[in-house]
């Protein structure tokens, strides 16, 4: 295991070294590791990598694995096409007048 890359999140190509680097910098909470490495933000949304990386965090930081909570899960449960969502049945009426809001990027 000492040679080559050990991929721990296949969607985002995150390696064991990336996770260790994040923890060494001090971004060691599972939410911070997620943000620093991007693990768990790809198509599987952590379904493959979440437990493995939690175990690495526990091992590297000497913490009780039972004390490491999962990161916040994000909807939708599986990747969903926009056209399906567009038909989800929330009709706000006039498309152009729905809400002239105080929000935006």
């Amino acid at each position, binding site marked *: 295991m000492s040679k080559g890359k050990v991929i721990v999140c296949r969607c985002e190509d995150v390696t064991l070294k990336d996770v260790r680097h994040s923890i060494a910098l001090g971004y060691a909470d599972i939410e911070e590791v997620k943000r620093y490495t991007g693990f768990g933000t790809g198509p599987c949304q952590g379904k493959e990598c979440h437990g493995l990386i939690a175990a690495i965090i526990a091992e590297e930081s000497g913490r009780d694995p039972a004390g490491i909570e999962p990161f916040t899960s994000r909807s939708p449960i599986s990747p969903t096409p926009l056209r399906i*969502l567009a038909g989800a049945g929330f009709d706000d009426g006039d498309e152009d007048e729905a809400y002239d*809001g105080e929000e935006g990027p």
Partner: protein
Amino acid sequence: MGLSGPRPPGAAGIGASGPPPPRAEVVVIGAGVMGLAIAYNLAARGLTDVVVFERGYLAEGASGRNGGGVRQQWSTELNVRLMQQSVELCRGFAVEIGVNVWFRQGGYLFLARSAAEVARLERNAAMQARLGLPIRMLEPAGAQQIVPELDVTGVLAASFNPSDGILFPWPFLWGYAQRAAALGVDIYTFTPVRAIEREADGTYSVVSSAGTVRARRVIAAAGAWSPELGRMVGVDVPTHPIRHEICSSEPLKPFLGPMVSELASGLYFSQSMRGEIVGGVSLPPQITYSTGSTLRFLATYARRLCRLVPRLGDVKVLRQWAGSYDMSPDGNPILGCPPEAPGFYLCCGFVGHGFMMAPAVGVHYAEWLTGGPRHEMFDRFAIDRVRGPDGGLPAGEREDFNIG
């Protein structure tokens, strides 16, 4: 959050192994982009006796939850000029700070579907051009030249400013924090402030979960949580949290240059450097600190986006999340010291646009607090304006381009 109590520092220098120093010149509350930009710029000007308290992790609040838009298309001159400065700072960020924030100037394309909206864009564009932006008004066909995938049915006109852009918010925070820490600023994560006490000599004792720091100046940069800090010193901070939802798609090959936004619906979307389509849409405002996600949001966003870019219909949404806009009574931020609390500096009320303004605000705050010039925004955006009968700036001076 997974840890309780202050965090031992890692190699990035964020966190602390013991209690904070008993005294500091400045305490910053909130390690979002505002607090960190101010802390870094103070330290870069030699004022390194600074302690930052953050109750969670870096990027936990709105600074880690926004779409990364950086635009100069605003309706008030002051905001245009501030954002021109921010864009310059974003361009130099990687060199100055040593972190790649994936800043990309693909422009912002605003679409108007009514005569009133066209008039707004034209009025703004005239002022923006006078201030030096390469802004131009476009016919629908011109918008389609920039984004060929657009269905411009019903679109009357567009404004396009090619020097607007997007960035990746998280490394912005890490960069400011790491540079500030390297210059001697103490940054305590997972360390909530429990009380702020005004002492007889005019200083403040800031009581945190890690210990108490006495400081001559306190900067409240806690975004939508700023009213809580105000109450600790008897200041009524009249902002409130609005949930703003956002989502991200599977990654696609790069095809979309600008951030695209529709005025009426507040629809906006851009393509991140990871290839995802990131965007949101306006919904009736909900006053809440909740960062829960709704199907209503996804459905509204998807319907508007599919109408405007039908070819995106088969693209899959991967994830949605939410953050708190810090809403002010007149749509403009609240800065400076309330008269009843000298030494207690507010930096809040940015209505969902604080991230893009923080690079410039951080510079101006640090200049002011280190004896340099006091920028006009500290007068314009003082808290007293929202305490008067008008509840804010006169109508003609209010920023009204907080939408899309």
